[in-house]
């Protein structure tokens, strides 16, 4: 008995009739990716498909209430009728672009500073990364207190500099820029982190060669470091732009559901949230989210094309 089992253990022979192992061997790719595909299908494809479905209906109040199919009506109304759509789109674009540019420039500068080894480097890095680990809503509440016009620290600070008080988050004209500042404060560290990783993989030879040839620091940065770092910068830009476009937490925490009394900080995400949870217009909110998704896809495609072209060049 022992011999037999040992034999079969040592030399497993595919038995006739059980094609399962053979099938698995042949379709390893499919078998190993199946759980991931199922996961994506259930958690991503279904919700998106359901949102698309809802966007063609006038579903409101409760999804179990009877609703009608309205075709592209919801889309048409957002694009033409609803006066808050285009301003919100503009604000989303302004917020994303401004925050992204500032974060990339600042992030690159900080990453270059931190690149060289120095004493206390670990401590400085931890310190710089702190905003990144803070909870966004808590961050929003914290800045709301700091920027409170009558009792907040920001105006006390302004006063000590001899400058007049500002309304910051409370002002119609200043709210969005203040929010950009908060976003920059919180997310620049992530850009630093990505760019530091990119910088550490750059080859040193080109830089040394340029140094021997007499190039100064600025020339070496512009003609060597920056081009070599471009793919990393592009990756950071894509990651951050998606996040910035979707920003919700700090806006909600500081400006409430309508993005302020004059909707001064209402981005597309806020508008969709208000339409869905405030006004219970699920069909209309779904259409808005699909439009938003479309915008993101268009922008990302453009960025990816630019990146590929850049890589080829």
């Amino acid at each position, binding site marked *: 008995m022992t011999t037999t089992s040992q034999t079969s253990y040592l030399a497993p022979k595919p038995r006739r009739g059980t094609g399962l192992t053979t099938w698995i061997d042949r379709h390893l790719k499919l078998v190993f990716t199946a759980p991931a595909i199922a996961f994506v299908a259930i958690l991503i494809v279904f919700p998106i498909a359901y949102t698309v479905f809802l966007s063609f209906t006038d579903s409101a109040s409760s999804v179990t209430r009877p609703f009608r199919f309205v075709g592209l009506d919801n889309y048409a109304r957002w694009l033409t009728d609803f006066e808050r759509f285009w301003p919100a789109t503009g604000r989303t674009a302004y917020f994303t672009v401004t925050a992204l540019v500032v974060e990339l420039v600042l992030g690159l500068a900080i990453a270059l500073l931190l690149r060289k080894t120095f004493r206390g480097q670990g401590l400085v890095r931890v310190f710089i990364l702190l905003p990144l680990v803070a909870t966004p809503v808590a961050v929003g509440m914290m800045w709301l207190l700091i920027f409170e016009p009558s*009792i907040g620290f920001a105006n006390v600070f302004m006063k000590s500099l001899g400058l007049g*008080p500002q309304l910051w988050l*409370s002002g*119609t004209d200043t709210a969005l820029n203040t929010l950009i500042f908060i976003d920059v404060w919180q997310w620049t560290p992530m850009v630093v982190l990505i760019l530091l990783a990119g910088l550490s993989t750059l080859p040193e030879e080109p830089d040394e060669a340029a140094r021997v040839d007499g190039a100064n620091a600025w020339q070496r940065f512009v003609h060597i470091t920056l081009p070599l770092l471009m793919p990393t910068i592009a990756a950071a830009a894509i990651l951050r732009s998606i996040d910035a476009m979707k920003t919700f937490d700090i806006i909600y925490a500081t400006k*409430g559901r*309508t993005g302020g*009394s*004059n909707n001064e900080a209402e981005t597309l995400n806020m508008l969709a949230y208000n339409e869905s949870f*405030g*006004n219970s217009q699920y069909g209309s909110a779904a259409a808005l989210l699909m439009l938003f998704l479309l915008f993101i896809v268009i922008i990302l495609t453009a960025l990816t094309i630019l990146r590929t072209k850049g890589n080829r060049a």
Partner: protein
Amino acid sequence: MITRTRRTRFALAAPLVLALAASMTACSSGGGDSEEVTDLTLIAANSPWTEGLKTLAAEYEDETDIKVNLEFYGNEQLNDTLKVKLNAQSSDFDMYGYQVQDVMREFSRNGWLADMTEYVESDAEWNWEDFQQSARDAVTLDDTVYGVPVMTERHVMYYRADLLEAAGIAVPTTLKELDAAAAKLNDPDNGFYGIAMRGAKVPLVTQFSSFLYSYGGDFQDKDGNATVDTPEAKEAYAAYGSLLKNYGPPGATNMGWPEASAIFAQGNAAFYLDADSQAYTFLDPASSAVVDTVAYGAFPAGPAGSHPYSIVPQTVGINEFSTKKDAAWDFIKWVTSEENSKVLLSEETVPSARDSAWADDAATAGFPAGLVEIVRNSEGTVGHDRPQLEKVALAREIVGGPAITAIEGGDVDAVAEKANTDFQTLLDGEQK
């Protein structure tokens, strides 16, 4: 080959399907019969009532062995949670606290609130009639009762007794006198303001309502049509706006009640007009610098008299999808009993909806003295503090707009007329 592949595909798929089916059954099996209820779940928005509930729920467990799980949220978070869970027909909670005027119409039409008419009329000893008439009316829609009111709330004037006395100013009884008093005490250069009130578009609507009524207006007429462009309404908008514009703190348009009350609590404002249920925030030495100096006055009269709102901010209802409705009712009956209402009033300053609680001097002893008189004198009060329709959230955004214009010093008349048109369109859409 094809057959075998197919068979093995089935073999692979079968466990997955089974697992899915099992998990789905698990999700939907909140039910079964409820012979032996061992626990109940109540979700609600934070309020003085929910504070008191923590102690009472423990007592209930001692008495009945039924554990009452409590989950508390902020107002908006509760609203979102309820919408998500009830859209999914969830039975994982049995009772919920809600704001009648915000959601009762919508939720009852969605079939999300259990009909409690028979429950409330079933027990003479518990005595539904003891609840204030206005409170009972508030939770009744088309002759159906959808909840039990657990708190009431009136618009009052909080003021700094010490400052008024020092300046020789009498307690204002009209909005004109309030304006003059606020002007006199306003000292923005030293970070002190005449008045603090809500100034953010949506939150301010409920507090603006008393101004509107006291100027002789309302959000809608008897037929339910929009009336926020009447001369009375325009004057009311202008009055509300000018108080905040001239004597309010900077950044008022970003303030809900937490921000505005904080300014008063820190001793930086002379007047604060808001709901009486916030009295406890000024009486807690940990967060208030005005514990000994805050006093209470009735809502000042406008040209049409003093007509503050008097509403039911918190109601407890039963989830239509709950499988433990009877047990839930038993708990609601117990927690809203005459005795427990008095306990909540005296120990947690929860403004009760029961007449018997207010008539009991021992129960009201813990409630700020000046406020008890205001509560007992309900003459001229109005039972709603926001537009009456299903899409309340949208309506609040619309009718709040002119107040923002007034605070910012813009053309109120034009904005009020546009708001009225938008509001009427919304009302028309709902009647279809």
